[in-house]
């Protein structure tokens, strides 16, 4: 009896071992890491006759670790040199890529999509839509709109610090959240906002700064006066006045209507956009001194509360009212005015408030009236004003935007003055 039990136990163990061996070792989906080519950056440009030019940068793990710092011409950003393939679809392009890449091309580690201007203007969803269906594609990838060609970004990009492509884009997104000079957006947000009937998406912009690119090619031998002659401060993508650094500018925002790019915002307009959306973190901004012409004061602004929006759909034209409560720290005073004195502080607060109010109002009217685009995130709140989806879809939303009346009300309180009272002055 005992030996029978032992036999049964041994037989059971044998069956389990055999089944385990059968089902765990010969897995069909086993793919060796050495057999994969992980695309970390994908660029989309429109080709002729409805084709698409897909540019990829493939990760080279050895380069990411920074082992091969001297061979910067062979590989950039821990990746291969950009490879561009023309195809009818992105999936087709990835398949064609395998005719020149010796490993299986995979999107599992895709970190960024760069969308060329011609694709963005034609409609992003036609190109990105099919990607969403692919198992390897993740909706959490970052993306940028490129004024010009996406491929050029891959060729020009020479980061100041980062060695990994994914780390590079994550760092840009993180820093943009703090400077407010660009929006941070994942492709998931773009898709959701494109599909919503009363909201439009925005995208961060990555642009080639031609002047800096020229400087880089000339080995920066020119003087400052020669390379930056008589130009004012610029916040426009691709037009920042600077010498050295990466030839790319990460500033500005692409504004879409539906999934089609309609215009770009510069860095300052982007801050206004973020302020209206209630997404501005602590951000330092320069404001002209109200009492001394030509001087500027630096104020660090943040939302004290989430902006309150009131939209009256039943009035004609529709009324949009925004109430913002902002909090500021005075962190830089160029003029000789003592802004620690209460009256002067009130003057400065009023001036900053009026400046912000005017800029926000101008921006909203510009986008509503000229493009009927609604990228401010406030129209999704009107969904609750309709009782059914059908009722909401019948509302002539775009038509109403043409004449929308905007009122901005800002309550600004400069609470702190830094670590100094009266300004530093000469003898």
């Amino acid at each position: 009896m005992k030996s029978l039990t032992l036999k049964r136990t041994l037989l059971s163990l044998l069956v389990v071992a055999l089944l385990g061996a059968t089902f765990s070792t010969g897995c069909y989906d086993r793919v060796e890491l050495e057999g994969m080519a992980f695309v970390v950056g994908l660029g989309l440009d429109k080709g002729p006759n409805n084709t698409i030019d897909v540019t990829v940068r493939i990760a080279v793990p050895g380069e990411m670790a920074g082992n091969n710092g001297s061979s910067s011409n062979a590989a950039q950003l821990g990746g291969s040199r950009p490879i561009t393939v023309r195809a009818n679809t992105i999936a087709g392009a990835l398949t064609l890529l395998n005719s020149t890449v010796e490993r299986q091309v995979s999107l599992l580690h895709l970190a960024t999509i760069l969308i060329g201007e011609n694709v963005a203007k034609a409609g992003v969803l036609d190109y990105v839509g099919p990607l969403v269906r692919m198992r390897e594609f993740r909706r959490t990838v970052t993306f940028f709109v490129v004024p010009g060609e996406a491929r050029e970004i891959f060729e020009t990009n020479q980061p100041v610090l980062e060695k990994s492509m994914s780390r590079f884009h994550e760092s840009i997104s993180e820093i943009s959240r703090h400077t407010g000079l660009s929006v941070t957006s994942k492709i998931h947000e773009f898709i959701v906002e494109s599909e919503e009937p009363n909201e439009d998406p925005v995208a961060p912009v990555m642009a080639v700064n031609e002047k800096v690119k020229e400087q880089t090619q000339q080995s920066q031998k020119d003087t400052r006066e020669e390379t930056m002659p008589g130009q004012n401060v610029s916040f426009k993508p691709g037009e920042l006045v600077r010498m050295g650094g990466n030839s790319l500018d990460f500033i500005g925002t692409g504004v879409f209507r539906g999934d089609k790019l309609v215009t770009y915002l510069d860095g300052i307009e982007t801050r206004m956009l973020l302020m209206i959306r209630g997404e501005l973190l602590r951000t330092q901004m320069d404001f002209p001194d109200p009492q001394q012409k030509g001087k500027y004061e630096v104020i660090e602004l943040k939302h004290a509360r989430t902006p309150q929006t009131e939209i009256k759909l039943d009035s004609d034209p529709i009324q949009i009212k925004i109430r913002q409560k902002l909090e500021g720290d005075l962190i830089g005073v160029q003029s000789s005015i003592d802004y620690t004195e209460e009256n002067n502080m009130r003057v400065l607060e009023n001036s900053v408030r009026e400046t912000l109010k005017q800029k926000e109002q101008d921006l909203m009217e510009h986008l509503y009236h000229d493009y009927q685009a609604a990228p401010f995130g406030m129209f999704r709140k009107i969904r609750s004003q309709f009782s059914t989806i059908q009722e909401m879809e019948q509302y002539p939303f775009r038509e109403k935007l043409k004449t929308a009346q905007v009122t901005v009300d800002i309550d600004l309180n400069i609470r702190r003055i830094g670590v100094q009272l009266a300004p530093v002055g000469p003898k």
Partner: protein
Amino acid sequence: MIKTGHLGRREMLALTVVASVADVSLFYPQQLVMRGASAGWMIPVFSMLVAFAVWALVAPVLVREEKQDLITLCEKSLGSFATRAICVVIALYMIADLSTFTRTFTEAVVTTVLPRSPISFIAVPFFLVCMYYAKKGIEGISRVSLVLWSWLAIGMLALLILNWNWMRPEQAMPLWGNGIGPLLSGAGLFTSVFLNILVIALFSSRMRKGSDVRAIGYWSIGIIGVTYLLVTLVFLMCFSPEAAMRSPFPLYQLGRLIYIGRFIQRLEAAFVFIWVVMAVIKVSMAVMIATYLFATVFRMPVYRPLVAAVAIIVYDLSFYPRSFVETISYNNKYIVTWGWAVTMGIPLVVTLAVRVRKRREVRGDEELDPQENAS
């Protein structure tokens, strides 16, 4: 009555909840959004109310008739032929439901996790595991459910909470979605997911304490309804109604969407465990029930010899639809449209028949008494 073991209070609750919420990992939330749009989350609420109402009628009979279950009650009130017919109908429904469920489950695995594996490579081991559990009986399956259900609840909650950064409450508006009509019709059809009523009614005689049945029913209906409500609501708030109705695997999609900074992302593999466990428990339980009912019909003393046969039939039928899309279409056309009649209708009809019979007996007794008095 075939001996199938005893069930504890917590085991029964765990089993009925896990088996009924298994569909939440597949396309049901997407179907809810299709029907109700931004108000898709309301459908489980209305269905839950219907289920509560049905249970309020069914539970008292099961509690009063302690150590009786749906089959024995049916035999007493409707006779042996009707009992056999009802057993066959429930068994066939289970097989049909299982066929579409296993096909959508295996297709989901192929689409999302193991794209190069042949579908049979996934289906065969899956069925072997389910057959093993089905052979172990309701007692074994319920204990596995009890061991795992707290982990499943934690995992599911984590999945929903980790997506908080994508949630936009406005996307659950307009309040009435596609209108009240589709919501109410959807609520009626969606009651088919409340499989717990049928399971409790079938195995109430196996409960150690018969009076626990009532509370288990109410608790399980509440938990199932709230689970579907929460998953659909989070799904809607993260994806918007327009996007949610195009996304067939909500839990997987939510898992892939988790992105809380550089270090908390790419976690979906951890959540695959949830839907595999739920699928195994549901399929094992349904195979066991179908087998048990066939054995009852043919007056077999044990059901276990039929497990392999029923599993093979389900396996074959699951490959009848040509594609994933056709499977969903079959499911909506037959299972969703008529499922409520089995899960809600049969327990309701049987318990009503028991009530009517009881009343007749009481009346008969009353009519007999005067005659006796007269004589």
